């Protein structure tokens, strides 16, 4: 998969390297701003309250 992406990137190898780094950075930004914030409440970490239904996700904001 990564070899295929590398072949598809245009330009000589230094340009490819920059493109690959930019693509990786974009993926990280997407993870940190969208995927992980969505995922976090669904993970069994960091619950600090006592609750009748501790696995329930946070109540919707009224």
């Amino acid at each position, binding site marked *: 998969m990564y070899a295929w992406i590398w072949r598809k990137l245009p330009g000589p190898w230094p340009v490819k390297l920059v493109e690959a780094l930019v693509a990786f950075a974009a993926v990280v930004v997407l*993870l940190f701003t969208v995927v992980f914030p969505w995922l976090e*409440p669904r993970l069994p970490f*960091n*619950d*600090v*309250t*006592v609750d009748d239904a*501790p696995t329930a996700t946070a109540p919707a*904001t*009224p």
Partner: protein
Amino acid sequence: MVRGTGEVFITLGVLLLLLCAYQLWWTNVESAAAISASRDDIVKSWRQTPTPEPSGSAASAQPVPAYGTGFALLYIPRLRDKVWGLPIHQGTSKAILAQGAGHYRGTAMPGEVGNFAIAAHRSTHDEPFANFPDLQAGDKVYVQTRTEWYVYTLAKDDPNLSPTDVWVVDPVPGKPGATPTQKLLTMTTCTPRYGSTGRWAWWGVLSATSPSSAPPPDGITGTA
């Protein structure tokens, strides 16, 4: 084939490392900024709106803030690194706890007869209660609202609670249905740290009250 499988595992490994970085580092960065902004908002709202005059009946209950609204600041000298003007918001959702401490809905307001119950993170999201185990009986906990300073003195704790032990935030903890006579404080967080399998609670009793217009109580002097 082998190469493709290897790439999948490497990708998963990098994703998990990034998730760790997000939890252990980035949530702290984001929450520290959110806590600071919320504290500024609360202080500003106190300055803008004139202090409401005490109504005729001194025993009148405080208005319950809207869900998500910041209404008080928390100061705990023992946890001074993190809990010094920590905003307390109404509600205990994850989004609210990412901005400071959360007030269990349905529990008493600060200074009221009953149980003023709050929760905060011990790990991630700026981890305000990171040093929760350092607290000792006799420690002071200060709650500042628009009109008052409330000083609670910690009395006892229980580090071996279950996440479903909702009785800890009852008006009289452990005695469901009992009519409260004391003005209590309950603070809950997770235990073990970085886990969610247990809960740790500290209880305190109101020991002093002073108007916010007067000089801050001993132990607070020198803060905003």
